[in-house]
């Protein structure tokens, strides 16, 4: 292989500087602060502080409330990721086959993507309001005894539903683009070989979509971990009984509402490590199975 050696000059550094500055200001510096704060026990106003080694970690990580939040985050993220990907894929495949009025279908399926999570949360909140909510009434008309203010499964259902609804359209756009990127010739050849469209999907289309799927899995897990904060804050706020509190929401509750900076920092450091580990796993083990 031929190695190309460029002359060293300042110009490339200049080009990456904006990105580096942004990462430093919005990621590296706050992360360093969080790690530093996580070893301190400090009053809210920062007037007195003491170095306490791992006390903030031992006090918060492993507490009942934290374990409950970790458990919920795991279930919630898996459900949101799986359901929003599966639904979007189904919709994309079907919309891709539509011949008449295809652009109408596509537009309708896409346009929820611009909605910010808190707005989605507020809309969901209205629909599930016990006094005026249509979905709330509908559920109860079917005899579910639906009560997301007290029943933790119902509350989980509400936040998963809203989170999935909000995310499906983004996934849909990517899947549709992915599907349209599959060469016609490959598809036609597959039709000659196999009559079953289901089988063609799993053996030809799905593997060819793998790069898109992998990318979306990474994006969706991040979404479920972090961005759903806005949905939870505007709907359940972690209730009932802390059953819909995600790890991020707990960091916010303890740090921002409760003024416990050390404990909140310790939790965010652990969360950061968890997400880093998850990302490493994704790229090392899952990406290997993806063929570009």
């Amino acid at each position, binding site marked *: 292989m031929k190695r190309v050696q460029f002359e060293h000059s300042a110009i490339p550094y200049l080009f990456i500087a904006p990105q580096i500055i942004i990462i430093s200001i919005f990621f590296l510096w706050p992360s360093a602060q969080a790690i530093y704060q996580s070893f301190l*026990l*400090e*009053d*809210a*106003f*920062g*007037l*007195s502080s003491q170095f*306490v080694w791992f006390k903030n970690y031992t*006090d918060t990580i492993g*507490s*009942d*409330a934290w374990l409950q939040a970790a458990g919920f985050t795991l279930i919630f993220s898996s459900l949101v990721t799986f359901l929003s990907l599966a639904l979007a894929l189904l919709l994309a495949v079907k919309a891709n086959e539509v011949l008449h009025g295809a652009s109408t279908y596509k537009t309708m399926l896409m346009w929820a993507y611009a909605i910010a999570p808190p707005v989605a949360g507020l809309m969901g909140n209205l629909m599930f*309001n*016990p*006094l005026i909510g249509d979905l709330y009434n509908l559920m109860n008309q079917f005899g579910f005894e639906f009560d997301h*203010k*007290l*029943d*933790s499964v119902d509350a989980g259902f509400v936040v998963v539903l809203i989170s999935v609804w909000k995310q499906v359209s983004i996934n849909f756009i990517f899947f549709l683009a992915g599907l349209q990127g599959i060469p016609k010739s490959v598809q036609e050849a597959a039709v000659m070989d196999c009559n079953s469209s289901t089988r063609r999907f799993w053996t030809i289309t799905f593997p060819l979509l793998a790069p898109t799927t992998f990318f979306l899995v990474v994006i969706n897990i991040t979404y479920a971990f972090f961005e759903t904060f806005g949905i939870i804050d505007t709907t359940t*706020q972690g*209730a*009932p*009984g*802390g059953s819909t509190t995600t790890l991020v929401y707990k960091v916010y*509750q*303890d740090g*921002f*509402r*409760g*003024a*416990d900076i*050390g*404990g909140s920092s310790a939790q965010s450091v652990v969360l950061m490590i968890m997400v880093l580990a998850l990302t490493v796993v994704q790229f090392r083990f899952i990406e290997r199975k993806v063929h570009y």
Partner: protein
Amino acid sequence: MRSITLLTAGIATLASGAWAQTEIQFWHAMGGRLGEVVEEVAQKYNESQSEVVLVPTYKGGYEDTMTAGIAAFRAGQQPNIIQIFDAGAATIINAPGATIPVADLLDQYGDGFNANDYIEGVRNFYADSEGKMIGMPFNSSTPLLYYNKEILAEAGIDAPPSTWEEFEAMAPKIKEAGYQALAQSHSPWIFSENFHSRHNIQLATGNNGYDSTDVEILYNNDAMKTHWSKVKEWLDAGYYGFYGRGWGDNQDAFVQKKVAMWLGSSGSFGGLKASTDFEFGTAYLPYWKAIIDEPKSTFIGGAAVFAMAGKSDEENKATADFLNFLDSPEVQYFWHKETGYVPITNAAYELAKEDGYYESTPDAEIGILQLSQPGGEWTKGYRLGFYVQIREVMYKHYEGIFSGETSVDDAFAKIEEESNDLLARFHQTVN
């Protein structure tokens, strides 16, 4: 509204020369109608004199305002005055150096300070253990029972319940008439903190937390457990409606005539008057006759204003001047009338009486009358660290009781354990 005030302030500044005026910042948590009234108070103040320009800024809910204040203080950008709510009092009062006690501020820069000007229930809540006022009570409320007169009449009930025993007797009638009997906003505040005050029960060691931060919570007591077992019974029988944690969700149930009675804040009075299309009345917070014969006064809720430290003498003088204005009888009476929060000084209360306000609106006096009921040993207030989290713990386990996931005994054992962990952590944080 705010931009108009800012604009007026800006024009005023230009007109009289910027160097002559001191600008002070006031961060508050009063949204909606309450926020408008704050703007009106600020406008009145700015028009009343020409040396100081007060700039009020709405910072979101109580927690948001406190967080904003903390972050600003850490960055050296704190406002002159900040509104801090009851549950956050321990956080700010246990950080000496973050604020100048209002008693000192008014002594040094203002006309002096006399704690006896304030009505009794308000005097101690934001004071230190020696009774020196650290924060100045601003919007002081107390829990009250609101009742829908039409529904009670429909159910054949003449008067709202004064005890929970009476409530139990009338609840089935209300259910028969097709309504839930009761809902409440904020169970930690009404059914926990004020439950203790009303029945004169100690809620934390160390003089309810005033004497020290090394304290333990005493919520796990028989009176509380009996009360909550009853509440759970009422919920199961359909007498009690739980519409979630949100303050507004439960208030809406009352406004929309799903429930006959609602436990809320005296500060809700103005808002309810505007949003209801039926006649409602206010009554004292009920108590258990079985626990106490003569009920005691309730705690004040709401919030206080604190003067933040690190400001120039000139600004502190302006702050003192505004605080004097804020506590003047006329302003307090205006605030009381517009919002329903109780007047916090004796003079303002007298003014409201002289003006005949309670003759035309007797329901507006209930809050201050309740606060003026005889106090007991445990009605002065409470001061507990990380109390925002402790309220979260309480909510969590109360929801467990309601949904049937936990028994009342287990719930209170957990509340005690988790709260004490938090209190121990807070003690270490500030010492």
